[in-house]
């Protein structure tokens, strides 16, 4: 007999809901809804990334838009060079071209964001609390204004990707196929985070969240643990950014803006800080509000704000906390 906790049951329900919704949309021949569910899936992944830093490591990054945007722009830049058959750059006598292969794009998106996160984290993690929030925000804003000022890739207008990138021989323009790719990646990322959470590294990270001095007293350098987690967190958010670019076939400086950082944080707070599937629920609610309330009134953010306040004031564990109770050990 399977002995599942309430949280595991809830997680199963969340996964099934995404699958059922996409199947229903297919059955009703409403591909738009598949795209909507795909959007939830991608934004959820960005939240899962932030949740690693915020939920497990206690690092309140208000600059994760930087990584989301880097993922997006790497996709846009590589694809636009490949589609226009232009050189990307030449280095050491080698000509480097763009690519429309998703696998390579993901790889570069993740690697470049890891570099950026290592740099940003190295400086930001010397501070704590409000200063950490402000300095991560400052880094993201720097990149935001840089992207606006850089005319080569559209500047303020953004950059269009004429066609979706390639993933083996799958027709990625087919909404269901693209959803399947995003959904599988989301599950893979969540699995990775759950393994990390229960590893020695994950324990040390949660210990660092509580008290860095105590962690140092058992011989572990808190800075290294936190920086590693920050970098992994950024890589996950960048992968989501790359998928988001392919979903919209368009990237713009908006991906770097502080609104994006705020939205990613809202997914985590609404769903449940530190809960594995929290960001999935958070992103789902966000899109539900945006789409349905947004259709009724342009002031839908007001209702989202009220909901966020309610959760923060009365349900600190977020929606997962309300439905599945306190964190239980598995």
């Amino acid at each position, binding site marked *: 007999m399977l002995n599942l906790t309430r949280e595991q049951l809830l997680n199963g329900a969340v996964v099934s809901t995404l699958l059922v919704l996409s199947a229903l949309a297919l059955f009703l021949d409403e591909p738009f809804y598949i795209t909507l569910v795909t959007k939830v899936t991608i934004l959820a992944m960005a939240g899962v990334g932030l949740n690693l830093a915020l939920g497990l490591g206690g690092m309140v990054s208000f600059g994760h838009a930087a990584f989301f945007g880097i993922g997006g722009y790497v996709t846009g830049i590589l694809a636009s060079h490949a589609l226009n058959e232009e050189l990307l750059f030449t280095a050491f006598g080698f000509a480097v071209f763009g690519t429309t292969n998703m696998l390579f794009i993901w790889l570069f998106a993740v690697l470049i964001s890891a570099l950026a996160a290592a740099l940003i984290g190295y400086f930001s993690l010397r501070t704590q609390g409000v200063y950490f929030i402000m300095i991560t925000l400052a880094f993201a804003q720097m990149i935001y204004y840089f992207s606006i000022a850089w005319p080569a890739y559209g500047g303020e207008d953004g950059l269009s990707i004429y066609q979706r990138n390639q993933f083996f021989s799958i027709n990625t323009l087919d909404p269901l196929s693209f959803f399947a790719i995003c959904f599988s990646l989301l599950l893979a990322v969540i699995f990775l985070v759950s393994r990390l959470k229960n590893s020695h590294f994950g*324990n040390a990270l949660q210990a660092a969240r*509580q008290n860095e*001095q105590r962690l140092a007293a058992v*011989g*572990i350098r808190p800075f290294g643990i936190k920086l590693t987690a920050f970098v992994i967190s950024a890589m996950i958010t960048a992968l989501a950014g790359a998928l988001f670019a392919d979903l919209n076939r368009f990237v713009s400086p908006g991906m770097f803006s502080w609104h994006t950082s705020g939205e990613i944080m809202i997914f985590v707070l609404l769903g449940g800080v530190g809960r594995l599937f929290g960001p999935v629920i958070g992103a789902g609610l966000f899109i539900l509000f945006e789409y349905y309330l947004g259709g009724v009134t342009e002031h839908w953010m007001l209702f989202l704000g009220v909901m966020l306040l309610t959760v923060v004031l009365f349900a600190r564990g977020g929606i997962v906390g309300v439905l599945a109770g306190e964190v239980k050990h598995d």
Partner: protein
Amino acid sequence: MSVLLNLAQIATFYGQSQALFGVDLSIQEGQVVALMGRNGMGKTTTIRSICGMSRASSGSLHFLGVDISTLPSHQIARLGIGLVPEGRRCFSNLTVTENLLVAARARAEHNNHWDLAKVEALFPRLAERRSQYANSLSGGEQQMLAVGRALMTNPKLLILDEATEGLAPVIRQEIWQAVKQLKAAGQSILIVDKTIKELLPVADHCVILERGSTVFSGLPEAMSKTILQQYLGV
């Protein structure tokens, strides 16, 4: 016997105010040293200075001949100093087993004596609480967990700061029992405790601090009534 830890004339400040004015302390391998003194005389500051949490501004600190006065805390811990901080500081958001495993580190150059099973043999109560969060344990159990966590680093020197403070008599005895077992196994220990009649029987050597300076260093038997009265108020 070789010298494990040696502090010579260390002075430590908290901002502008000086807490230590000249502490001398030496621990031989296998020794249990009691660090004594009334409240506010610098016992915890001495420990914080050893562990690199507060920096000694002058004097020398050597552990196994290595100058540790400028090393960061985690490197000092890796050299082989296991701290049980004052006030049972467990990681309350981790389970008992996770608290122990965070500290576990196998090192080739050490004898990796301690593992989960050994800690649970020393404190059987922890075995019954494996998957409970540390914040759901009783005070005594948290203290046992803090000691176990320090042991998991396979320390050459174990530092116990007020390990029995505020605990019920039965639990205190369990902790003292464990200290005696550790001593019998040859573990070097630096121990701070307020209950002198329980502390003296396990101590090989006593050091008394008064206003941030070492005023006595010698065998427990060498402490006269006057010394006890003058410096410890008993």
